[in-house]
């Protein structure tokens, strides 16, 4: 949070979203807290990465932020104004967001031309003459402007994703949320898209929220990184600091589980596997939600929920022991 009193571009305050679910084989309804008390902020021109495994709530959070889902509780403020304010003010604020989805083929109308799809955000704003803007945008994302006349199926996966990015950026949004936007692409294309996003950010100053299960991809694009587990933020840090020193045992496990293209490193890898699976978010463990899989867990963790505390320089972590000496040992076992 900036200390000079200016308002951040995006503030998410104590955001919660619950879903009522019918549990299999039981008549009772359960409550799934997909996003449970998440707060974050984003500055103009900045990228925030959100990483976590399936079921951690990262996609729900994405949909909440862009206004595709209404929160159960909490607020989302853009330039200090609530996106769910009633009437034109709220609508206007929700327009400042755009989203890029995982599957580029499924997120474009197969019957319309690429150009028609890309121009849609402009038409939604009431702008009729869009051809020139579409041409400029397609060029900017590295596509031949003639692609505007093609149908999505005539484009390759990488080209489709470039077109989705063009669509997201054409109406000059303040924030683009990427939900696993490179996950369905081949490795050589993933790197192309990551580089494109870095270039576009430099050129246009757009802020990104980049959501992925792939820690390396998140780090490649983000200024700051947030790690989620079972609906909660367990760590938030500057990405350079995070790269050298993740503090939460779950962040460390994620990092250790990220396989590197280096056989010598991989052979030396210590056996610090997390046991078990992610518990059900319908009945999350009491105390620290990670305690069932944590190598450091004590009685305290089973009883008392750790709060997200600042360990210095805005590096937030929700762990009773993060940064203590017993923990450093666990880290060093990771790579012997």
């Amino acid at each position, binding site marked *: 949070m900036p200390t000079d009193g200016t308002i951040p571009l995006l503030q998410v305050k104590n955001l919660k979203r619950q879903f009522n679910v019918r549990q299999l084989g039981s008549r009772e309804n359960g409550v799934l807290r997909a996003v449970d008390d998440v707060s974050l902020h984003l500055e103009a021109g900045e990228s925030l990465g959100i990483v976590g495994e399936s079921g951690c709530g990262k996609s729900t959070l994405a949909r909440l932020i862009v206004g595709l889902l209404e929160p159960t509780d909490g607020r989302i403020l853009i330039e200090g104004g609530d996106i769910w304010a009633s009437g034109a003010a709220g609508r206007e604020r929700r327009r400042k967001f755009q989203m890029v989805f995982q599957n580029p083929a499924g997120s474009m109308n197969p019957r319309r031309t690429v150009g028609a799809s890309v121009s849609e955000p402009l038409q939604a704003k009431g702008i009729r003459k869009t051809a020139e803007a579409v041409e400029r945008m397609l060029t900017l994302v590295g596509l031949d402007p003639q692609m505007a006349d093609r149908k999505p199926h005539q484009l390759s996966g990488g080209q489709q994703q470039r077109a989705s990015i063009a669509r997201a950026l054409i109406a000059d949004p303040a924030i683009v949320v990427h939900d696993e936007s490179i996950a369905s692409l081949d490795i050589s*294309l*993933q790197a192309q898209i990551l580089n494109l996003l870095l270039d576009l950010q430099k050129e246009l100053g757009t802020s990104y929220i980049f959501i992925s299960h792939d820690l390396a991809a998140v780090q490649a694009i983000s200024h700051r990184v947030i790690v989620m587990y079972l609906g909660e933020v367990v760590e938030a840090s500057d990405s350079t600091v995070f790269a050298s020193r993740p503090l939460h045992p779950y962040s460390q496990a994620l990092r250790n589980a990220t396989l590197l293209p280096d056989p010598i*490193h991989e052979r030396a890898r210590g056996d610090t596997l997390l046991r078990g699976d992610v518990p059900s978010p319908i009945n999350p463990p009491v105390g620290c939600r990670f305690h069932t899989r944590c190598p450091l867990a004590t009685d305290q963790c089973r009883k008392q929920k750790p709060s997200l505390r600042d360990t210095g320089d805005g590096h937030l972590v929700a762990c009773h022991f993060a940064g203590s000496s017993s923990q450093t040992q666990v880290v060093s076992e990771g790579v012997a």
Partner: protein
Amino acid sequence: MNNRPVLRVENLTTRFHTGQGAVTAVDGVSFEVAPGETLGLVGESGSGKSVTAMSVLGLVPKPGRIVRGAIELNGSDMLTLRNEELRRRRGKECGMVFQNPMTALNPSFSVGWQMREAITAHDKRSDVDTRIHRALADVGMPDPQRQAASFPHQMSGGMRQRVVIAMGMINDPQLLIADEPTTALDVTIQAQVLSLMKTLTREHGTALLLITHNMGVVANMCDRVAVMYAGEIVEEAPVDELFASSRHPYTRGLLRSIPNPDRPRQKTPTLPGSPPNMAQLPTGCRFRPRCVFADSRCDAHPDLLAVADRHKARCWKTQNGELLTETKSLTETTDAN
């Protein structure tokens, strides 16, 4: 490891006759897997790696057909076998693990029922229940009796994939073929499943043909690697050598295009372009349109030839002893901050 290979594939060519003409998905692929060895078959989508695995198993979906080549499993030719005989060998001498455990398991039957089927298809006498429970315990399932009675939907993705691995290994095959076994799993679960596969294949001396697009998985699991591009193997080498000194521009580019988690907000060098349309392959070297090293020699199609000890590459340049000296476009790593 001086005995004969468990699997020998020679000049395998598998073609699909589609509305847009014939597509040769696998084109003259040859490789061997030694007993107990893990060979990685790596490539991006459309490179032919999965079709190669399907061909080995005799499971090429229509309209695909193996048009040429030989596949020997334990010395006997799989392509001349009748269906009945093929069924007898498949699952017994060669187990398989597919990418998606939800579709590899039947949702209407208990896990134990399905494992029983896998055993009794090949062996009707043994104590089936004990074997099922032992196999489930081997893949780290707590309380195997209870797990055998449960249905796939009652399990998590990681648990299901453990069941699929247990089924693949249950007849103690000499070869296990795993097609993207961890791609559908979360990273922490992927680490568990890979470690399990490594332990199991080591303990049983099982050879593993591991198909993946993930270079991290390759580095973690494989003894040797074959890299596929546009239906062909373009490079083959022991794992350390491949990562340390790749001799094909495609492998080189692929390895460099993986983001480094230790260096945030840095641009990653990329391979330009995208893989070719298999119905309209470029003439000459198939990688030529994306290759920064290409010259006039590349008009002719190169063969896969030795470039070093146990190291083959399909590239005129490295076959000639020339180095893949870094050019600007490969090494460019601008700071993006």
